[in-house]
């Protein structure tokens, strides 16, 4: 791996709070190593801003290993930046070259209001899970784990759906700000397993209803969500949700 250093121009969205209008500001960073992660480059910039007596840029991040789903950012028109199947925290500076101009914006959707700078409120996702993204089993009432065999293919497919980290890149990339990939991943994860069958119908109806209520758009199968998903969750799960939804709706008692 060839290592190199670079100087960059950053155009970053700054917004004091939810009600502020917000604007872009331009910053220059020097001697950035190609070995750094994108967020470490932001750390360097923030240290620089604090030393200059300016307000550092607020951005969400926590695990910095691509699994907690806390980091966001739209980098040069792509959520989580240019790399495929990646989160912002795992993006490394070797994706950029000396002299590059990088535009950084928050995830944008009405359902994800900006809290400050690049930090957005994604609690809508929690409320969607509250609407039915679980299997109702109280602690202590479970049968032996091997009592119900699960086909390996189905278990693998359920895992692939359950790998969703709830980051919201799907919403940020979607021209309709739709949360269908997120919702369908949870519906598929639980709906594929035998344990998830009793609530399969109510789950999909309630989760879709909550998604609509939160102000996400409708899916038009453009596939942008799948392309930016750090975990590569397939839009085929959306088709599965559509089927589950209609089956449930058509047999709904009211």
């Amino acid at each position, binding site marked *: 791996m060839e290592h190199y250093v670079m100087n960059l121009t950053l155009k970053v969205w700054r917004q004091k709070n939810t009600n502020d209008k917000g604007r872009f500001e331009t910053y220059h960073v020097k001697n950035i190593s190609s070995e750094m992660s994108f967020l470490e480059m932001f750390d360097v910039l923030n*240290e620089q801003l604090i030393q200059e007596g300016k307000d*550092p840029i607020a951005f969400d991040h926590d695990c910095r290993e691509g699994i907690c789903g806390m980091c966001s950012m739209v980098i040069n028109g792509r959520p989580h930046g240019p790399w495929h199947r990646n989160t912002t925290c795992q993006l490394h500076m070797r994706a950029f070259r000396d002299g590059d101009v990088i535009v950084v914006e928050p995830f944008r959707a009405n359902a994800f209001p900006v809290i400050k700078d690049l930090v957005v409120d994604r609690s809508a996702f929690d409320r969607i899970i509250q609407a039915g993204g679980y299997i109702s089993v109280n*602690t*202590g009432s479970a049968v032996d784990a091997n009592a119900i065999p699960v086909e390996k293919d189905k278990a693998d497919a359920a895992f692939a759906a359950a*790998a969703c980290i709830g980051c919201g890149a799907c919403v940020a990339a979607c021209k309709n700000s739709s949360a269908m990939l997120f919702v369908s991943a949870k519906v598929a994860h639980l709906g594929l397993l035998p344990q998830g069958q009793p609530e399969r119908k109510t789950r999909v109806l309630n989760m879709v209803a909550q998604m609509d209520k939160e102000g996400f758009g409708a899916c038009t199968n453009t596939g942008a969500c799948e392309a930016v998903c750090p975990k590569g969750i397939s839009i085929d799960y959306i088709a599965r949700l559509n089927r589950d939804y209609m089956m449930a709706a058509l047999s709904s008692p009211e």
Partner: protein
Amino acid sequence: MKLDAKIPPGPLENKWTYYKGHCKLVNPANKRKLEIIVVGTGLAGASAAATLGELGYRVKAFCFQDSPRRAHSIAAQGGINAAKNYQNDGDSVFRLFYDTIKGGDYRSREANVYRLAEVSVNIIDQCVAQGVPFAREYGGLLNNRSFGGTQVKRTFYAAGQTGQQLLLGAYQALERQVALGNVIMYPRHEMLELVLIDGKARGIICRNLINGKLERYFGHAVLLCTGGYSNVFYLSTNAMGSNVTAIWKAHKKGAFFGNPSFTQIHPTCIPVSGEYQSKLTLMSESLRNDGRIWVPKIKGDKRHPNDIPEEERDYYLERRYPAFGNLVPRDVASRAAKERCDAGYGVGTTGQAVYLDFRYNLINKYGRAEASRRGIKDPDEETLVQLGKEVVKEEYGNLFDMYEKITGENPYEVPMRIYPAVHYTMGGLWVDYELMTTVPGLYALGEANFSDHGANRLGASALMQGLADGYFIIPYTIGNYLADEISTKPIHIDHPSFEEAERAVTERIEKLLDVKGTQTVESFHKRLGKIMWDKCGMSRNEAGLKSAIEEIRSLRKEFWSDVRIPGSANEFNPELDKAGRVADFLELGELMCIDALHRNESCGGHFREEFQTPDGEALRDDANYSYVAAWEYKGESQWELHKEPLIFEEVQPSQRSYK
């Protein structure tokens, strides 16, 4: 004050049953009147909050992240142990108990560890029922892998994302209780003070991280499930936000801190690449199942690893520990790596790394099995490698991808470079058998307590402990306390104790902001981390620890006179949040060094250079140090040591041998 662990009477295997049969209960109507605060929503916190909500208690749960789903339990990779014996390879509750006690180098409590092994089987049942998609065999039954420090396959897993799947299970159970109104969730809230009324834990003061406002919450009991404090080392595998603040505040309010210096250094992490580095990334221990660790036999060999022939490679773990080979416990593997690197055999640009090589098992383990399954006769080596890769992709694909993203190298082709890094803290608040700290009504669960792992935790046991505490232990033990609280009316948050606690928090924040110095919080944190890593890290000695204590004290003084925190208290201000956490780390670091200094022996992850066997293994001193060190806070830089003797009835402590 005498420490009473409240271990139930009777033979080891009946203690938990006895306890459950004799503890006090709270009837369903009274549960509705009792409020419980749960701080932290990782495996321990989320499972506790969900389960207590199901039981009917009124629960308030807090986390500093934007959603409970993001707690750092999510990053656990390899798996979770349980004594299911589905593999028919000789596992049992006793064996899991024994492995854990031995793995912890005989510095944990028998009764707790036995209980942990006992409930481990229930955890798997519960998680499967919640829809956790564990790996399965073609027959539809659960699969297992093996982990360090054991000779059976008892680890359940979901690719390299087991922690994520378990946490999502607990998170979903928690959100279900939120929907039912049994739990109120407060995300982006950080606990900054514990409120005591008449000596009992009765509430917390939180900062709402969005608007910076301080808020008061009452609870009949308070559960701290806030994880570990590895970030005192600055560089660790923990999340950026992981901190000690909640348990440190509790410690300063009277909760004893158990074995603070017991830190786990994980052997397989991606090595540091530069000064700017903000965190370290773990490569799951499960990789040691399939990877072989080696360094060149020639000092300073700069050849490409693939060009070094087999006979010039030193598989030092297999050489030193033939019985366990690459699967020795973490402390042993870490020290062995350090020994090789210190001796000049390290690889990579810094010389601070060893190779973890998958080629042998790609070919011999997975490649051959897959070739045989597909009916390929006499496959050549390249075919075997190809087939092996496909299987490994399914088992660890995400880890290999992660490695490639960080280092830019393809681990299927080139051996991984790895080095030990701080990963987990066995130390934490001292708790009794009921998980209660020395403050009545204050509990600590999961990594936040001094835990069941003694001086070294075995792989895949942290997830087990977090969930055991939350799902199966606290629901019983908290009832034993709350049964006497049913007549306590909720205390209004205007109570003077709340006022006073909030005032203390306000003053501290103002003090921090008023320093208006020249150095950033981050720079102090880095300096603290360096002191801790150099002098209280993988190996420690008296002189180093003594100087570390002095250095930390002066660094702390410097911090309070020269830190620069931008912005104000009443806004979203991550630098201020970080400053508070680093200020607490600066106090904790000192206690860790004091603890490490007082323990004149080596055990598990605590390695004192003065105390080692002739062949460099940890030398325990059971006659003098077979106890839990529980430190009582007495004022700045002052602690009083209390000892809880460890009495072994079932197992006899012996020199740990993995040879």
